[in-house]
C-alpha cells in the first residue's frame, strides 16, 4: 500500500514538473502588468488596447469578475486587490478613502500638469474629489437628456420637440405618443424613465436629499415630495410611462444597460430619459432614427449628472505605474476615443469642443451631439452625506420608493419614513464614529438633530 501511495505521489510530482516546463510563455513577458477592475464591454476593451498600444512597456488587463465596491475593498485590504478600479459616486469614493484603498494622487497629477478641478466636467467631481484632495481621474461622464424615436413622432404627426422646454409642455406630447392597439395592448408609451432616476425629479422641483451640510436628510421637504409625486403621476395619473408590471416586459440586457434602453431601441417608447452612453447599444439597432433634446425642466433648470472615475489602489505595489493610466485618461487620444465610442462623454471639457465630436465622420446621422455637451453645464451630481453609509441610505430610500412605484404607499408618507429612518441612521453612525461626530458637532454647533 505504501508503494502505491508513493507511486501516485511521484507520478503527480512528475506531471507537475512537466506541466510547469511546457506552460506557454506569457505574451506580455518583460512588460509591467496592470489590472483594471471594470465592466466588460467592447468600449472598455478598445480603451485598454489603445493604452497598451501607446504604452508598450505596460500590459493592462481587464478584470470584470471582481467588480463591485465590497470586493475591491476586501481584496485590497487582504493584499490581493487590483491596481486600478472604478468609482461610481461620491459615497463610493468616501468608502474607498476611509478604507485606505484610494491613493491620493493630488500631487502626482499636479506634477504631470493635470488639474482635474479645472479640466473635467463638474458632474463627476464627487467621484474624484474628497475633502479637497484628488483621488482619481474620470473615465467618462454624462448628464441625462431625452432620446426621441423620430419614427414614432413622424407616425403620430408630432413635430420633434425643441429645448428648452418644461414638463408642462412635455405632457400633452407624451400623451399623444402613448398608443394602445385595438385589443387594448400597449403599442408604445410616450416616455420611459428608469426609476432610479428619481433624484432628477427631486432636484428639478428644488428639493434635496440632504441638507447642504449633509447633517440631515430632507427628502421629506415639500419640493422633494412634489418632484417624486410628478414621477409617480407620469405612471398612474397621466399613463404616459409603464408601471412596474408593464416595465417587466423590458428584459435585462446586461452589459451596458437596462431593459428600458432595449425597449426604447425596439420602438416601445417615443421618448426616454437617458445619457449619451445609451448610444453604445442603440447603434446596434438597424434603422432606428434617433434624435436628442434637452430634458424638460421643472421649477429649477438642473439635470442629473453622473459618471465614473478610475482610482488607484493605494496598496498596489505598482501604483506609480498605474498613474500612467490616469495620465492617459487625461490625454486627447483617450478622450477622442470615448467620444467616438459614445461611452458617455469624454471627461476633459476641452476635448468635447472639437469638430470630430460634433460630427463624427463614421456616424454622420448623429447630428445631436451638441445636446449632450450643452446640458453638461446644468448637471448636478447625486448628493451624498458623509454621515451615513451610502448603501444603507440607498437601501432605505429604495425600499420606500419601491412602495411608491408600486402605488402601495403615498409619496409623502414614503419620503417621510425614509427621512426619519435615514436621520436615525445618521445618529447611529455618529455614535460609532467619533471623527464624524466631531465634524457633525462643528457643523451643527453641537446640536444633535
Amino acid at each position, binding site marked *: 500500500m505504501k508503494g502505491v501511495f508513493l507511486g501516485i505521489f511521484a507520478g503527480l510530482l512528475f506531471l507537475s514538473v512537466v506541466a510547469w516546463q511546457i506552460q506557454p510563455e506569457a505574451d506580455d513577458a518583460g512588460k509591467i502588468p496592470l489590472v483594471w477592475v471594470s465592466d466588460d464591454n467592447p468600449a472598455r476593451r478598445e480603451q485598454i488596447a489603445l493604452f497598451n498600444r501607446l504604452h508598450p512597456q505596460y500590459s493592462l488587463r481587464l478584470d470584470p469578475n471582481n467588480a463591485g*465596491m*465590497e470586493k475591491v*475593498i*476586501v481584496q485590497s*485590504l487582504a493584499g490581493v486587490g487590483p491596481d486600478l478600479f472604478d468609482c461610481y459616486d461620491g459615497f463610493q469614493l468616501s*468608502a474607498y478613502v*476611509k*478604507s*485606505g484603498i484610494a491613493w491620493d494622487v493630488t500631487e502626482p497629477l499636479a506634477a504631470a500638469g493635470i488639474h482635474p478641478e479645472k479640466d473635467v466636467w463638474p458632474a463627476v467631481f464627487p467621484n474624484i474629489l474628497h475633502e479637497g484632495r484628488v483621488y482619481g481621474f474620470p473615465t467618462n461622464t454624462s448628464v441625462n437628456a431625452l432620446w426621441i424615436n423620430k419614427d414614432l413622432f413622424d407616425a403620430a404627426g408630432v413635430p420633434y420637440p425643441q429645448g428648452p422646454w418644461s414638463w408642462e409642455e412635455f405632457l400633452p406630447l407624451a400623451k399623444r405618443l402613448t398608443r394602445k392597439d385595438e385589443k387594448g395592448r400597449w403599442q408604445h408609451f410616450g416616455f420611459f424613465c428608469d426609476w432610479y432616476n428619481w433624484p432628477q425629479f427631486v432636484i428639478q422641483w428644488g428639493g434635496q436629499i440632504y441638507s447642504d451640510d449633509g447633517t440631515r436628510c430632507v427628502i421629506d421637504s415639500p419640493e422633494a415630495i412634489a418632484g417624486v409625486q410628478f414621477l409617480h403621476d407620469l405612471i398612474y395619473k397621466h399613463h404616459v410611462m409603464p408601471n*412596474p*408590471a*408593464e416595465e*417587466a*416586459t423590458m*428584459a435585462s440586457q446586461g452589459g451596458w444597460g437596462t431593459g428600458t434602453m432595449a425597449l426604447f431601441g425596439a420602438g416601445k417608447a417615443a421618448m426616454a430619459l437617458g445619457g449619451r452612453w445609451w448610444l453604445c447599444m442603440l447603434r446596434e439597432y438597424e434603422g432606428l432614427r434617433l434624435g436628442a433634446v434637452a430634458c424638460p425642466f421643472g421649477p429649477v433648470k438642473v439635470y442629473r449628472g453622473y459618471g465614473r472615475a478610475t482610482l488607484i489602489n493605494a496598496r498596489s505595489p505598482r501604483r506609480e505605474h498605474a498613474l500612467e493610466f490616469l495620465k492617459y485618461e487625461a490625454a486627447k487620444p483617450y478622450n477622442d476615443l470615448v467620444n467616438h465610442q459614445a461611452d458617455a462623454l469624454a471627461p476633459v471639457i476641452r476635448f468635447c469642443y472639437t469638430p470630430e465630436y460634433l460630427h463624427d465622420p463614421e456616424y454622420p446621422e448623429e447630428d445631436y451631439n451638441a445636446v449632450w455637451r450643452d446640458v453638461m453645464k446644468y448637471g448636478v451630481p447625486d448628493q451624498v452625506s458623509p454621515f451615513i*453609509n451610502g*448603501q*444603507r441610505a440607498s*437601501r432605505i430610500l*429604495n*425600499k*420606500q420608493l*419601491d*412602495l411608491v412605484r*408600486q402605488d*402601495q404607499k403615498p409619496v409623502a408618507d414614503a419620503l417621510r*419614513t425614509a427621512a426619519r429612518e435615514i436621520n436615525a441612521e445618521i445618529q447611529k453612525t455618529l455614535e*460609532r*464614529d*467619533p*471623527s*464624524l461626530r466631531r465634524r457633525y458637532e462643528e457643523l451643527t454647533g453641537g446640536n444633535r438633530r
Partner: protein
Amino acid sequence: MKKLFSRRRRRELVVALGFLLPNFTGFLVFTIGPVLFSLVVSFSNWNLQRTVPFQWIGLANFRELLHSQEFWLYFINTGYLMLGMPLAIGGSLVLAILLSQNLRGIVVYRTLFYLPTFTSGVALMILWKALYNPDFGAINAVINGILTHLHLRELLGLFGLGDVTAPQWLLSTRNLLGVHVEEVRLTASQWGIGARDAIILMGIWTAIGGNNMLLYLAGITNIPQDLFEAAQLDGAGRWAMFRHVTWPQLAPTTFFIVVMSFIGGLQGGFEQARVMTGGGPAGTTTTLSYHIYTKAFEEFQIGYASAISWILFAIIFVVTLVNWKFGSKELSY
C-alpha cells in the same frame, strides 16, 4: 497498554495522523478559526472603514440587533421562505416511492429528476426569473391563457372577482399570509401572491428532485423486503403498507431530512436575493443570510454582521435541539 504503544501501533498512528493532518489543518484554519474569530469580533465595533476606531463594545451589537425592527422583518422573511419545506419533503418522498419502482428506464427518470440539483443554481435562478416575468414569462402566459380560454374572468365576475389578474411574482410585495412590509404584523392589504411565494415555489421545484429524494430512495431500498412480504400475507393494501411499513422504516431518514432542511432554510435565501431580487421588492426577500452580507460587505459593519451570524447560529441550534428532542422520540428503528 503495552499493545497500545507497540512499535507497529505507533507507526500506524503516525501514518493515520499524517493522512488526517492536511484536512484537519484546513478545518482548523478555514473553519474553526474564522468561526471563533467571528465570535470574538461580534463583541467589537470592527468596521472596515478606518475612521471608526476599533473598540470592544460587549453585548451592544446583540442588544442593537434584537431591538432592530429590520432584523425581525428579515427573520420573518427567512421563516416565510421555509413554509415550502413540508411540501418539498413530501414531494421528495412521493417521488422517491415512484422512482423506487422496478420500471424500464428508471435510471433515466432518476437522472432527469436530479437534474436541477447538479445544474448551476445561478443558471436556474435566471431561468426562473424569466419564467416569472409578469408579461412575457411562461407561467403567466399559461395563467392568462387559462383565465381567457376557460372564460374564468367572466365566471369570477359573477362573484365580484372579475378583475383577477395573473400575479406580479418577483415584483410584488404581496404574500399568502398577508405579512406587512414594514411592520411585524399581518395586514389584509398585503394578501396575494408575490416575490416570497415565487421563491418558495422555485425552492419546492428544486428540492423535490434533489438530495432529499436520493436519501429517501436509499432509505426505501434499505427496507427489508420480508417486511413487505409479511404485510402482504396479512392482507395489507398499498396504503396500509406505506403507513405501517414504509413510513415508520423511513423515520430516521425523515428526521435527518427535517433537521437538515431547517438548518438549510434558516441559512437560506442568499443566492435568490442576490441573483433574482436584490432583496426586494421593498426588502421582502431579504433573509438573515443576505442581511449578514449587506451589513458586512456593503455597510462594512463586520462586528454587527458577526453578531447577526451568532444569533442565527443560536436560532439554528435551538431549532435543532427542539427537533432532536421531539423528533427523535418518534424514531423506533
